[in-house]
């Protein structure tokens, strides 16, 4: 067991090293696709940290991501704060928000949590637009930095590695063990003395932190920030789909989901921009009815069959 988990970490490090070479090999178009993919890898892996073991479907990613991007935008164009300071502040704000949401909803059943996060990005967007229109004046927010796509890509890669490492550590800690029990049966978890609400809130805060950090780091890519664009509910759904498509039960699951999905999504958005919503719906149904445990579930099923066939 110990050896296998170190091996897993070794493979991950090797993949990360190879991934770091991408900007040196790819042309501009493929680099931009890779940046998108890397963004989703970081977002999905951090999403799965919380939702994987607990089975609570969080749709708050868009809200946290938006906070990251929007705060970087406001900080840099309205208050002339440097990018780095804002990139450090915004995840903290998102973490605090996640703590509040978690404390209000995670003590109750999972449905309330899903519903609360469902409209969250939209609600914050309305609130931010209202504040901007009435108190700050609706000026555009510019994020002007010297970063190239390659820089953004490498920063996202570092975040993704951090998330992965954190997930690896959590899975081997008391907290990770507690979450697994909560996911299997919350009543049992309570009876053996686990503070279920607290464990969930802490994990939810970490996903909030990373989603905002990714939002902040990717902001320079858009140059011009608008609440309507950064607080996108669609992003939350994309993250859920990609993570589940890969399989949220394993740390490397989201990775297997993000890469094929990003490529197909890119293709669909260019070929049939009007049917993207329809396509999303079809993939959702596909996950529920055909791939309930994602690609990872299928791969492990095949593995098991192969092994049984051999012996």
């Amino acid at each position: 067991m110990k050896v296998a988990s170190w091996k897993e970490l070794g493979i991950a490090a090797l993949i990360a090293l190879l991934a770091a070479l991408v900007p040196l090999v790819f042309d501009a178009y493929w680099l931009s696709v890779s940046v998108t993919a890397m963004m989703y890898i970081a977002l999905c892996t951090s999403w799965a940290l919380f939702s994987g073991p607990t089975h609570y479907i969080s749709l708050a990613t868009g809200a946290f991501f938006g906070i990251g991007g929007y705060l970087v935008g406001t900080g840099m164009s309205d208050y002339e704060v440097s990018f780095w300071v804002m990139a450090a502040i915004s995840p903290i704000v998102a973490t605090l928000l996640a703590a509040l949401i978690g404390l209000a909803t995670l003590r109750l059943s999972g449905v309330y949590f899903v519903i609360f996060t469902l409209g969250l990005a939209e609600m914050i967007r309305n609130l931010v637009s209202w504040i901007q229109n009435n108190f700050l004046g609706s000026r555009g927010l510019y994020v002007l930095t010297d970063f190239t796509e390659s820089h953004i890509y490498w920063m996202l890669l570092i975040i993704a590695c951090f998330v992965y490492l954190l997930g690896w550590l959590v899975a081997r800690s008391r907290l990770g063990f507690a979450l697994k029990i909560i996911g299997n049966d919350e009543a049992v978890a309570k009876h053996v003395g686990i503070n279920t609400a607290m464990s969930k809130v802490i994990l939810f805060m970490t996903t909030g932190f990373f989603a905002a950090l990714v939002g902040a780091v990717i902001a320079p890519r858009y140059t011009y920030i608008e609440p309507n664009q950064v607080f996108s509910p669609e992003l939350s759904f994309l993250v859920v789909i990609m993570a589940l498509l890969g399989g949220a039960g394993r740390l490397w699951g989201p990775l297997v989901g993000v890469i094929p999905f990003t490529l197909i999504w890119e293709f669909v958005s260019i070929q049939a921009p009007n049917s993207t919503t329809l396509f999303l719906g079809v993939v959702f149904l596909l996950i529920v009815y055909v791939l309930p445990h994602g690609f990872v579930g299928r791969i492990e099923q095949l593995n098991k069959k192969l092994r049984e066939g051999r012996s």
Partner: protein
Amino acid sequence: MDILVSGLLLAGTYALVAMGLNLQYGVARIMNLANGEMLVLGALASFWLFVSAEISPLLAIFLVAPLSFAGNWLIYRFLLRPLVKRSKSQGQLEVDSILATFGMSFILVGLMLSIHGAYFTYEFLTQPITILGSIVALNRFIAFLIAVAIGASLYLWLNHTRPGTAVRAVAVSPEAAGLVGIDVAKMSAIAFAIGGAVTAVGGALISTFITLDASIGIIFTMKALIIVIMGGVGDIRGAIVAAIILGIVETAVATLIDPGLTLAAAYLIFLLILLFRPQGIFGRRPT
């Protein structure tokens, strides 16, 4: 006063839609997040009938109701029933049904966008009338009356007929209902279908006085969910009170502060409910 009257009129249709969702979640145990899309589909149907064939939305209801009943029955029977069968626990079913209905809502939005991508605007009964000293459009008042009529007959059906009692029995406990000879699968399907039909009719009514578009369903899903939770799952009386509160608060926020903040106001109510009365206004604390 103006706020109270138009808030109350809005609450009528909200209560109707929440009743539909309540049947689906309370009886069929399906957290239907495609509920808002069903509402928009009803609205689109009545808009389309009005624009292309000049059929009054009040007549369109009679077409929308049976069609959406059949559609929802089919959805339950062929898409959701397998999930109910395969799930080992309520939690598992909740996750599955949430994801599946998300899928359906996206598919519906996609289809509706391809049918009619613009706003559903038409003018129907826009002449002003005076109620309790405030001026409102006739269409709002008519929609309110119809919503109340449908809601009342649904209430009577649930409480004073045999099939209605069977539906309520399933809501209380599917296992016990099965023991006394109620066909739980059939009753769940019927409850889900009625819930969908009621929601679609609510959509047709709302379309007479609010301009909708294909992708607005999710907002109505949120509102219906907030009403159901505020009222307590399965509690019709609670849902009506909750709808009135939401209707009035929304109207007040829209007139006094800014129409863009109605969702934020709904969230505030939601948050207060979660913090202080998660079991619903009239609900008892679980022991």
